[in-house]
């Protein structure tokens, strides 16, 4: 119930932002519209708890802009230097995050940050396969992910 | 007269509805119709012989100048009497002849239509209505020839007959329209006054060519004669009625009818003489090689038709009188012969003259009819046939320089006609009755009275020619532009050349009859020459034409889609290319009028070029799809830089959708084969390249033209003011040109329904064969 309401508010906000018109009527319209759409979409699906993290995700995105820029300079370096110094490989990273949205968030973060991108998640959601350009030490690579992004996501979940 | 003409049709319609009940006595009762019509037309004998012309006018389709205007003059009356008189006898005769037939109602139905059509034909003053009835006689004749439709011979003959007469019909149509076009009227009475103008017209020769084509096919003139012997597949009453007495004479009627309008012209006369002459001799000669009674009669009929054409061609007073008389003569004796032949056939089950003899012993009245008819056909006095033959010799002898050749030709023909008459009318009855025919029963009077009546009438008119002369022959001759009083009909002309010729004819005829016996051997002998007969040549031509048709159709409709596309594209390139390059303006492109290039345009365009090349050169389906995607996105960017945001959005969405569609079905799509060879690719490349180049050129040319932006400006100026929208493209779509959009979404709906049914509907196996 609460989640739906939050999502609804979020979509209303999005609507108002998109139209750029801060009238009461427009806000009400946006609210009704998104309520209607949500009703259409989720009235038939039992699982509707996805939406409670949305605001946090927005905050998260800004947090990772820094990581993103860093990653890009690494890429730039790799692309522009004449020789490839990469040691690529695919590593199976065991997962503690469980929900789909958390996994997706983690995967996206990994992809957007230096040298690595998430190739896939095992079907039982226990392992994420990450392709990385530089793998010196498997264990430290895994630890880096688990202590970095995953921990943050779990914290987000708890809050 | 309108009722008279329509009565036959009404009668047929009546039969369609009540046909089931039409058996037995009712079929005999049907003969009341022709009888009353006969009496009706007899009532005109007096007025017509006194020079009157009876007319009626019923407008029908005045826009085409087609009216049911009927005119009764001597010529029409003669034919009307033949049609109804002989019609009456045939109606009576057929009631018994076809008594057992399952579909006797249909038979009478066709007969009714035919009679009506024939009456319409001879009564019409309007050329188009004449044509209309002319075609109806062909059609009803088709149904009658094919009446025994389970026999493939019957069907073939019917088709052949209608094809030949139909050909003539279409020539007639063209001739009629041309004549109407030249003379400004379709009334033949009015055309009589335009004789000079018509003779002087540039189209005179074309007109007579077309009309003669019609007449010759209908009246079975060489080389179109062959359908008539084939038409003998029809029941005998039909042969008697249509194919000797009436319908085949429609061509003669037409020629006679046009003699005062188009006749007396060198080409007219010569053509008729030559065609008639060849026909009469050629077909008369053929009677020597036939054993089937009806076949013999058919050939001799054609010979007489040839003779009639010949006489019309001679065109003199004598000739025209002779023709008039001969029409009567022939109608009487030939119908009698056919009917008696029908009786023989009906009773004995054979028409093979070699197997028939002595029938007089079992069917005396029929023998009387046969013999009387035969002597009339031979021209033995005192039959009317003698009169007719005399007139014919008179006519040929009066032809000056050519007299001798024409006379000899006629002499030989007459000898052969005599032979044919004797074979058909005398041979079956003379001699000893074979054993197998001993038990033959005497037919009922309703069968034998009609031929006897006809034959006796032939004798009667011969004895009292005055009965024929003033009331009938004279008005006929006058109707065809002659002087009716110029020739007197009489039996005795004194001793003269004509009499000598008559004697010679008889002598030679008898000689021939006694020397030459019809035999199967002769039929076979003649069969060897069949290969060069007009019929065979026509059939061969027909077959070759069919083969050609097959080949032509196969060349164009060859089953290969790309050949179809090539043909269409080539047609376009040649035609449009010709127009573009031959135009007086020439190809001028003012480069200054074109806007400058910017580098991002270059980038986008080169992207598009490369994408197209990539698609064309790609050897993998998915690559091609990827290429299409890129091309679409590039077009999208192009729309962006040319300030068409709506287009860019739509193009992009649609392109993505197309990619998705492709991807969804690609696995199920066929492999991307390329079996074409290089030559083929080169050829296709040249064709499609020239197509593309042509369109590029057209585009550049169009860009040179000044542009009118009145409508766009209206949209731009009024989009907000009148239509309350600021995105002009959208305003156009939903308001200014909303109707386009309205239908466009309907198009989409139809496409979606199509996709749905195409994918979801699987006919079950047993539904499949049904194909409905």
């Amino acid at each position, binding site marked *: 119930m609460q989640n739906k309401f939050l999502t609804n508010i979020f979509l209303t906000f999005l609507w108002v932002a998109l139209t750029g018109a801060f009238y009461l009527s427009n806000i009400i319209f946006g609210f009704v519209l998104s309520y209607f759409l949500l009703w259409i979409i989720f009235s038939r699906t039992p699982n509707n708890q996805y939406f409670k993290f949305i605001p946090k995700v927005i905050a998260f995105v800004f947090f990772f802009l820094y990581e993103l820029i860093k990653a890009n300079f690494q890429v730039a370096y790799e692309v522009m230097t004449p020789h490839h110094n990469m040691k690529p490989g695919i590593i199976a990273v065991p997962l503690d995050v469980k929900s789909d949205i958390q996994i997706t968030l983690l995967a996206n973060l990994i992809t957007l940050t230096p040298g690595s991108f998430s190739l896939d998640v095992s079907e039982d959601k226990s392992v994420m396969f990450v392709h990385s350009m530089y793998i010196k030490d498997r264990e430290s690579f895994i630890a880096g992910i688990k202590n970095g992004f995953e921990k943050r996501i779990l914290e987000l979940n708890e809050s | 007269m309108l009722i008279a003409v329509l009565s036959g049709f009404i009668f047929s319609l009546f039969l369609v509805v009540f046909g089931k009940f039409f058996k037995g006595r009712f079929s005999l009762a049907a003969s009341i119709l022709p009888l009353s019509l006969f009496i009706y037309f007899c009532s005109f004998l007096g007025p017509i012989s006194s020079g009157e012309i009876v007319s009626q006018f019923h407008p029908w389709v005045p826009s085409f100048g087609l009216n049911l205007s009927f005119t009764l003059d001597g010529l029409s009356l003669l034919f009307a009497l033949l049609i109804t008189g002989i019609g009456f006898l045939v109606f009576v005769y057929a009631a018994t002849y076809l008594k057992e037939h399952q579909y006797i109602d249909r038979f009478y139905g066709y007969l009714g239509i035919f009679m009506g059509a024939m009456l319409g034909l001879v009564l019409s003053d309007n050329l188009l209505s004449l044509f209309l009835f002319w075609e109806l006689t062909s059609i009803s004749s088709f149904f009658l020839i094919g009446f025994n439709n389970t026999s493939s011979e019957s069907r073939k003959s019917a088709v052949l007959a209608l094809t030949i007469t139909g050909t003539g019909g279409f020539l007639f149509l063209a001739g009629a329209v041309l004549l109407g076009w030249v003379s400004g009227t379709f009334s033949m009475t009015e055309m009589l006054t335009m004789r000079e103008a018509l003779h002087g017209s540039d189209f005179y020769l074309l007109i007579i060519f077309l009309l003669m084509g019609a007449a010759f096919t209908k009246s079975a003139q060489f080389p179109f004669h062959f359908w008539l012997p084939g038409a003998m597949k029809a029941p005998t009453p039909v042969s008697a009625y249509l194919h000797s007495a009436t319908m085949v004479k429609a061509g003669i009627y037409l020629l006679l009818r046009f003699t005062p309008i188009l006749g007396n012209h060198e080409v007219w006369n010569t053509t008729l003489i030559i065609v008639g002459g060849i026909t009469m001799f050629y077909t008369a000669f053929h009677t020597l090689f036939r054993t089937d009674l009806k076949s013999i009669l058919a050939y001799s009929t054609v010979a007489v038709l040839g003779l009639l054409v010949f006489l019309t061609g001679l065109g003199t007073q004598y000739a025209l009188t002779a023709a008039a008389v001969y029409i009567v003569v022939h109608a009487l004796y030939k119908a009698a012969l056919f009917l008696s032949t029908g009786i023989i056939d009906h009773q004995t089950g054979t028409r093979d003259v070699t197997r028939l003899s002595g029938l007089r012993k079992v069917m005396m009245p029929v023998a009387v009819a046969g013999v009387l008819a035969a002597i009339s056909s031979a021209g033995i006095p005192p039959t009317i046939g003698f009169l007719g033959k005399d007139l014919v010799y008179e006519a040929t002898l009066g032809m000056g320089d050519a007299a001798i050749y024409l006379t000899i030709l006629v002499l030989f023909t007459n000898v052969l006609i005599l032979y044919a008459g004797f074979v058909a009318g005398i041979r079956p009855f003379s001699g000893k009755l074979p054993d197998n025919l001993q038990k033959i029963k005497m037919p009922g009077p309703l069968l034998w009275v009609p031929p006897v009546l006809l034959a006796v009438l032939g004798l009667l008119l011969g004895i009292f020619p005055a009965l024929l002369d003033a009331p009938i022959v004279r008005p006929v001759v006058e109707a065809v532009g002659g002087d009716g009083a110029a020739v007197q009909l009489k039996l005795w002309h004194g001793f003269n050349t004509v009499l000598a010729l008559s004697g010679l004819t008889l002598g030679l005829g008898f000689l021939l009859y006694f020397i030459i016996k019809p035999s199967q051997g002769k039929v076979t002998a003649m069969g060897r020459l069949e290969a060069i007969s007009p019929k065979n040549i026509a059939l061969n031509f027909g077959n070759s034409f069919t083969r050609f048709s097959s080949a032509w159709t196969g060349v164009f409709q060859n*089953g290969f889609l790309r050949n179809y596309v090539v043909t269409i594209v080539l047609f376009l390139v040649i035609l449009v290319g010709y127009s573009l390059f031959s135009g007086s303006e020439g190809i001028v492109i003012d480069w200054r009028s074109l806007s400058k290039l910017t580098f991002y345009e270059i980038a986008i365009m080169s992207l598009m070029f490369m994408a*197209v090349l990539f*698609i064309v050169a790609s050897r993998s389906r998915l690559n091609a799809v990827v290429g299409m995607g890129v091309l679409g996105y590039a077009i999208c960017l192009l729309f962006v830089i040319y300030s068409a945001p709506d287009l860019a959005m739509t193009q992009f969405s649609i392109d993505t959708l197309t990619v998705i569609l492709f991807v969804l079905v690609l696995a199920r799509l066929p492999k991307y084969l390329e*079996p074409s060879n290089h030559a083929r690719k080169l050829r296709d490349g040249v064709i499609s390249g020239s197509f593309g180049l042509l369109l590029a050129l057209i585009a550049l040319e169009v860009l040179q033209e000044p542009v009118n932006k009145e*409508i766009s400006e209206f949209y*731009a100026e009024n989009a*907000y003011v009148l239509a309350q929208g600021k995105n002009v493209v959208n305003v156009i779509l939903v308001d200014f040109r909303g109707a386009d959009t309205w239908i466009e979404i309907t198009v989409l709906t139809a496409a979606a329904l199509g*996709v749905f049914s195409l994918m979801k509907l699987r006919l079950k196996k047993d539904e499949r064969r049904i194909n409905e």
Partner: protein
Amino acid sequence: MELILALLIGVLYASGIYMMLRRSLVKLIVGIILLGNAVNLLIFLLGRITKGEPPIIPGDSDVFLQAYTDPLPQALILTAIVISFGLQSFAIVLVKRAHKMVKADDLDEMNTTDAES
């Protein structure tokens, strides 16, 4: 600019027809789509490409103040694009079904309905 675009349109027409002349069913569809694009661009070009404002009246105005591009060809193309999409999707499905039923990859094998029978 028009010159290049005209040539490009020519190339699109040509390649569309060329692909339609191949024997492969899929190439036929590709050809159809290329041809559709060619025609749309031709309308665009012949409606006179002018670099100007998009045909959208500025927010605070009732009429155009600056040169704008011709909106009519854009509307026509939009309609044409959407219709082509309907036709293309039908064509794709048609080819898929035809391929399955006739069991031919090759257009040249699809010629029984033209045969005399």
